[in-house]
């Protein structure tokens, strides 16, 4: 038994909340034993012949073997994308391009359950999230950008939008298919071709997506997918044939990419880390706010760059909020990602679990008070009990660093100004939440918070029409909405004045 487990709330798991197991059927899914790299419309062997297992993090069982792309594989993929861009894809009329994207959206809708099961299996997220959030949003993203493909000249007044060429895209493991959709849909709508590198631990939905492309009859080479660890991503960033890099991941890697591209003139967009404040005022609807706090930090096991990982509570309501929060924590169901009643699934990887444990330990050592509800964790797989830290000082690592796990740090404030100051006291600036019944206060807070997305009386909402992206060290560029197109277009001015 670890120290952590000893401290965990030992009161019995509340009765009346036990459900019979309700696992989603896995037989909807047929997995290959081994997947190659998707280059030029086909799954091909990697040059090195190197494969690695990809697992189910809830059981540590291997699911399939996946190729490790090397330098020459990435080169082949970039060449395939260039060839497709220059010989065919650019000649297809924008209206026809749109129709390919509409097809992809439709096929994703039709095969959504299959994808949802695979997403939960390979990533550890609860099926109710992959089913109700990841999949509908992925399809919607393609549907939304499909419609832009033949309307680009209306998006940016007085500019002549042109495709950039080959986009290199690197995505994280927290929303594997959704991040793929966020990257590929606007890139193709704008007329580019892409080479996409899925995350090392969650490549399977991207590989299944190649079957969607087959069904949609997308011309070969327009989308290429190279799997592997960070080495494959680094090769993609360095490749001279890539005109634009779009990266979603950690701030540390984002900075390294920005450095790598310095002086090259390549376009770059970065969606990096966050340490969002979720701010609750004393006039907030408390029960709703508590649901918002829970959704803000335990959604997708807290593997969310915009997670509300710092709760800022107005002092006068600190006790009732913490009490309600602890009560609500006890009802969270942690376990089998494929069970339809599961609220919190498995931690994505062993490495991530270790990072969470390390930071939680630092929180205890620095003097914060830990609370973990009673809950039974499965014997195998990677798990972490939903955790709340109180008595947190702003200087603690758990208040400064992105944990990317189900761990909430609670701080307090007295005045709106203090809330703003604490919320903005971080190098990050991705998102924030505000809970109050006072409209003028919402707008004032929304104005003062240095964050790219502000959720008022809600949290973790996403939509293809809604631009998403960070301030400060959370990155630059937007994904979603009209603004998300800009990252994938060359925008010459038709009549720039004064020139």
């Amino acid at each position, binding site marked *: 038994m670890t120290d952590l487990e000893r401290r965990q709330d030992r009161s019995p798991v509340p009765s009346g909340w036990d459900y019979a197991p309700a696992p989603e059927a896995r037989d909807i899914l047929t997995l290959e034993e081994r997947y190659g790299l998707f280059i030029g419309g086909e799954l091909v062997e990697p040059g090195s012949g190197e494969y690695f297992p990809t697992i189910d993090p809830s059981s540590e069982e291997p699911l399939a073997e996946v190729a490790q792309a090397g330098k020459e594989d990435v080169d082949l993929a970039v060449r395939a994308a260039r060839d497709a861009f220059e010989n065919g894809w650019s000649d297809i009329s924008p209206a026809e391009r749109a129709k390919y994207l509409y097809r992809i959206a439709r096929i994703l809708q039709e095969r959504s359950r299959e994808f949802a099961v695979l997403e939960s299996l390979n990533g550890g997220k609860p099926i109710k999230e992959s089913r109700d959030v990841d999949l509908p949003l992925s399809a*919607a993203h393609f549907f939304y950008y499909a419609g832009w493909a033949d309307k680009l000249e209306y998006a*940016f*007044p*007085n*500019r002549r939008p042109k495709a950039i060429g080959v986009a290199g895209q690197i995505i994280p493991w927290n929303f594997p298919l959704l991040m793929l959709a966020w990257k590929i849909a606007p890139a193709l709508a704008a007329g580019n071709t892409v080479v996409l590198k899925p995350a090392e631990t969650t490549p399977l939905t991207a590989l299944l997506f190649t079957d969607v492309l087959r069904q949609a009859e997308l011309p070969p080479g327009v989308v290429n997918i190279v799997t592997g660890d960070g080495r494959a991503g680094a090769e993609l960033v360095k490749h001279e044939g890539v005109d634009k890099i779009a990266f979603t991941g950690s*701030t540390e890697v*984002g*900075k*390294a990419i*920005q*450095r790598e*591209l*310095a*002086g*090259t*003139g390549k376009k770059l967009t*970065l969606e*990096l880390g966050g340490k969002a404040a979720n701010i609750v005022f004393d006039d907030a609807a408390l029960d709703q706010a508590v649901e918002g706090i829970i959704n803000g930090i335990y959604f997708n096991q807290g593997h969310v760059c915009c997670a509300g990982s710092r709760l800022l509570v107005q002092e006068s309501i600190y006790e009732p909020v913490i009490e309600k929060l602890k009560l609500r924590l006890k009802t969270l169901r942690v376990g089998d990602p494929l069970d339809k009643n599961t609220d919190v699934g498995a931690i994505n990887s062993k490495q991530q679990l270790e990072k969470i444990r390390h930071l939680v330990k630092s929180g205890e050592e620095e003097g914060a008070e830990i609370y973990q509800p009673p809950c039974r964790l499965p014997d195998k797989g990677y798990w972490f009990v939903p955790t709340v830290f109180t008595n947190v000082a702003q200087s603690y690592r758990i208040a400064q660093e992105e944990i990317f796990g189900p761990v909430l740090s609670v701080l307090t404030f007295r005045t709106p100004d203090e809330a703003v100051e604490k919320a903005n006291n971080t*190098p990050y600036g991705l998102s924030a939440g505000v809970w109050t019944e006072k409209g003028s206060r*919402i707008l004032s807070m*929304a104005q003062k918070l240095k*964050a*790219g*997305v*502000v*959720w*008022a*009386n*809600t949290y973790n*909402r996403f*939509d293809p*029409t*809604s*631009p*998403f*992206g960070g*301030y*400060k*060290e*959370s*990155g*630059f560029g*937007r994904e979603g*909405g*009209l*603004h998300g197109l800009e990252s994938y277009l060359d*925008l010459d*001015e038709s009549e*720039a*004045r*004064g*020139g």
Partner: protein
Amino acid sequence: MSRLPVRKTYKLFVGGEFPRSESGRTYEARGQNVARASRKDLRDAVRAARGAFGKWSGMTAYNRGQVLYRIAEMMEARAAEFAELSSGRAEVETAIDRWVWYAGWADKYAQVLGSSNPVAAPYFNFTVPEPTGVVGVMAPERPALDGLVARLAPVIVGGNTAVVLASEPEPLASIELAEAIATADVPGGAVNILTGYRSELAPWLAGHMDVNALDVGGADGDLPELERLAAENVKRVVRGHPDRQSPYEIANFLELKTVWHPIGV
């Protein structure tokens, strides 16, 4: 008997004041001794710019537009001096008209660059542009006056504050401009202009952790290194052109903020 004219001392423009370089150094340009700013001056300028950010970005768009328009007024009144310190009358007129043009954008760009977003759920969702913060501007060497105006105007019209490295060979017009700005109701610190050696200052501006964006348009061969330094705090790096005039130049120095609010009763 002819009267001996009173000469001007060319100094830095930091925090709304005209200090000499704390280093006591100068260099000669067009026969004048010009302040040669130090790293310390640069840090002071960034601090002044950060300090002025709340006031400048908090002013109404209408008000910022009027202040920019007043810069044009102040320049017009000194047009003859500007003509002497730049390439001539034509450059001065272009620069003045540029201020007028950007002044008019102050209360319009948000309508062109923002959006309301029809999300598929009962939420009101809108996106508004906001200033990035403190912007470092490396002004082009030439045209020293209009090049600086072309890069500075889109930065400050959006509510950012600026630290400008003036043209090294032609710094006089930029100090003349500072004097126009200082009398145009621009809050002290919103615009800071440093003269000196580019190679001494540019890397420190590029690497400064409290600078949010960087216009390297006027930088020379050391561009890759400056861009590498800028990555330290994920600066927005813009390769500005001295002859470009567009609301998209303003957009380069803006963040987009998206706000969600439930619709209900």
